[in-house]
C-alpha cells in the first residue's frame, strides 16, 4: 500500500545526511566539549560548527544561540528566564490564545506565582490584532510572547510589527519559531525579536534538541544550575550528537529553503483547492499568510478521529483538532479561539507537507479523500444530503 506521511507539523523524518553526521559524531568524537585535551577540542569544534549553522539559519550570531532539549525547553527558558530576571521591573506578561502549550502552560504556571497574564484574542484567521496588543501593554509589562506561525492552522503572525511596538514600549519580545525556522525565511534582526525558540525535529533533525536565540544584552536567569556550559544559561554536558544533527539539519534547510518553500506552496495549494472543492469543507487559518506546509480544513458532519483512522487505513497520516483525538477530550484551543464552533472544530483535519512528499502523493490523497468523506457522512446523523451545498470559495 502507498504510504503518505502528511504530519510533518508533528515531526519529520531524520535526513540521511543528519544521521550520518550524528553517527560520525558518536563514533569518532565522543569527547566532552569542556575538556582541554584533543578529544575535548574535537568535540568542541563540532559543537561550535553546529552553533554557527543554527545561527545562520535565523540570521543570528553564534554566541547568541543556547542549545536546549527542544522547543518546549526553549519556550520555558525564555518565559521563566525573563520573568525571574525582570520581576522587580514588572509582573505583567502578554501572550496569545493560539500559542503552543509550551508557552501557554508556562504562562499559566507564572500566573500561579503571582504574575499577571494577558491572553490576546485572535481573529477568525488566528491572527493577533495590533490594536489589542497596544491596548494590553502596561508600564509593568515585561515580556510579550507571540508565536511566529501557528502549528495547527499555519497562520503567520506579523511579528515584525508586533516587535516594533513591544520594543518601543520597552518590553522584551519572544517568539516561538518552532514552526517557521527552516520552513520560511527567519531573520532575528529583520524581525527585531530578543528571544526566539527553534526545534530540530521539525526540520529533519533528531528529537530532543532545540535552541533559544538570546539577543546580546537581554536580561534573563537560567532555569537550571550547574556547570558553565552554554554561557551558564543552560548548564550540563551538551547533547553533542543531537546538536550536531540539529546543526546539519539547519545547514540543509538554509541551503534548500527557497526551492523547498516554493515546491511546498504548490503542493499545499493543490491540496487546499482539492479539499475546498468538496461541499461543506472550509479552510481554517489565513488563506495567504500561511505556512507553506500547512493545510487545515474543517469537514462538516464528520468527526476527526474516525477520519484519521480511515485515512490511516489508506496509508495517509494526518492529525486533527477533534475533541475525540485529544487526551483531554477538549477540541483544539486554537480553533475555538478563532471562533470556530465546537462541532466544526470536531471535523478538522490537519495535513502538513514535507520534503518527502510528491505531486503523486497529492494525487493519491485527493483521490481517496472524497470517498472517505462520503462514507463517514453517510453514517452521520448530522448530514442531510439535501442541505449540502458547495461552500463559498476562499477569497
Amino acid at each position, binding site marked *: 500500500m502507498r504510504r503518505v506521511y502528511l504530519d510533518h507539523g508533528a515531526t519529520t523524518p531524520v535526513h540521511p545526511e543528519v544521521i550520518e553526521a550524528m553517527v560520525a559524531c558518536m563514533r569518532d568524537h565522543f569527547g566532552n566539549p569542556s575538556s582541554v585535551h584533543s578529544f575535548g577540542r574535537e568535540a568542541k569544534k563540532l559543537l561550535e560548527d553546529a552553533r554557527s549553522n543554527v545561527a545562520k539559519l535565523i540570521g543570528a550570531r553564534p554566541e547568541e544561540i543556547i542549545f536546549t532539549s527542544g522547543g518546549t525547553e526553549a519556550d520555558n527558558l525564555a518565559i521563566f528566564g525573563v520573568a525571574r530576571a525582570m520581576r522587580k521591573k514588572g509582573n505583567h506578561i502578554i501572550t496569545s490564545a493560539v500559542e503552543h502549550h509550551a508557552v501557554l502552560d508556562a504562562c499559566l504556571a507564572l500566573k500561579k506565582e503571582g504574575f499577571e497574564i494577558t491572553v490576546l484574542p485572535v481573529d477568525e484567521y488566528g491572527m493577533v490584532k495590533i490594536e489589542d496588543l497596544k491596548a494590553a501593554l502596561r508600564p509593568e509589562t515585561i515580556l510579550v510572547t507571540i508565536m511566529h506561525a501557528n502549528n495547527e492552522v499555519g497562520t503567520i503572525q506579523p511579528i515584525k510589527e508586533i516587535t516594533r511596538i513591544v520594543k518601543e514600549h520597552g518590553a522584551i519580545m519572544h517568539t516561538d519559531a518552532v514552526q517557521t525556522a527552516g520552513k520560511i525565511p527567519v531573520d532575528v534582526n529583520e524581525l527585531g525579536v530578543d528571544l526566539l525558540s527553534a526545534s530540530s525535529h521539525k526540520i529533519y533533525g533528531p528529537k530532543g534538541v532545540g535552541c533559544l536565540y538570546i539577543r546580546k544584552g537581554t536580561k534573563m536567569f537560567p532555569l537550571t544550575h550547574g556547570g558553565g556550559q552554554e554561557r551558564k544559561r543552560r548548564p550540563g554536558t551538551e547533547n553533542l550528537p543531537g546538536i550536531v544533527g540539529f546543526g546539519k539539519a539547519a545547514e540543509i534547510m538554509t541551503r534548500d529553503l527557497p526551492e523547498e518553500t516554493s515546491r511546498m506552496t504548490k503542493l499545499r495549494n493543490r491540496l487546499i483547492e482539492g479539499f475546498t472543492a468538496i461541499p461543506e469543507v472550509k479552510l481554517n487559518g489565513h488563506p495567504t499568510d500561511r505556512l507553506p506546509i500547512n493545510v487545515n480544513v474543517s469537514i462538516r458532519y464528520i468527526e476527526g478521529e*474516525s477520519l484519521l483512522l480511515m485515512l490511516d487505513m489508506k496509508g495517509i497520516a494526518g492529525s486533527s483538532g477533534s475533541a475525540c483525538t485529544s487526551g483531554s477530550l477538549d477540541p483544539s484551543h486554537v480553533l475555538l479561539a478563532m471562533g470556530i464552533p465546537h462541532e466544526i472544530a470536531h471535523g478538522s483535519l490537519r495535513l502538513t507537507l514535507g520534503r518527502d512528499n510528491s505531486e503523486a502523493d497529492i494525487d493519491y490523497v485527493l483521490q481517496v479523500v472524497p470517498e472517505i468523506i462520503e462514507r463517514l457522512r453517510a453514517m452521520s*446523523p448530522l448530514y442531510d444530503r439535501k442541505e449540502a451545498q458547495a461552500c463559498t470559495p476562499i477569497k
Partner: protein
Amino acid sequence: MYTDKVMDHFMNPRNVGEIEKPSGVGEVGNPTCGDIMRIYIDVEDDIIKDVKFKTFGCGAAIATSSICTELVIGKSIDEALKLTNEAVAEALDGLPPQKMHCSNLAADALHKAIADYKAKQEAK
C-alpha cells in the same frame, strides 16, 4: 490503540442507516466530547426485528454503535434493556480507558429508542 474487533466494526459497521417507519427512535449526545448517535428500532411482538444507526463520533463510538445493533437484533425488549455499556465494550474485546465514555452512547441511545417505542405503544 484499538482492538482488532473495534477496527473491524469501525471499518465495516453493521446496520448503518435508517428505518423508514421505526417503532422507536433514540438519540443521545455525548456530553464529554459532543458526539451524537441515533438508533432506530423495528419491534414486532416485543421482539427487536431490526436496528439501524447513525453516528457522528470517533472510531470507538462507531464501533460500539455497530456491535450494539448486532447484540440486540432478535432479542426481546426486556433483554435489550439489560444491555449495559460495559457489555458493549466487552463485546469489542475492550476499549482504551479514555474511550470508555464513548460506549455510553450506544446503550443509552438504544434504551431511549425502547422508551420511545413503549411511549408510542401506550399512546395507542
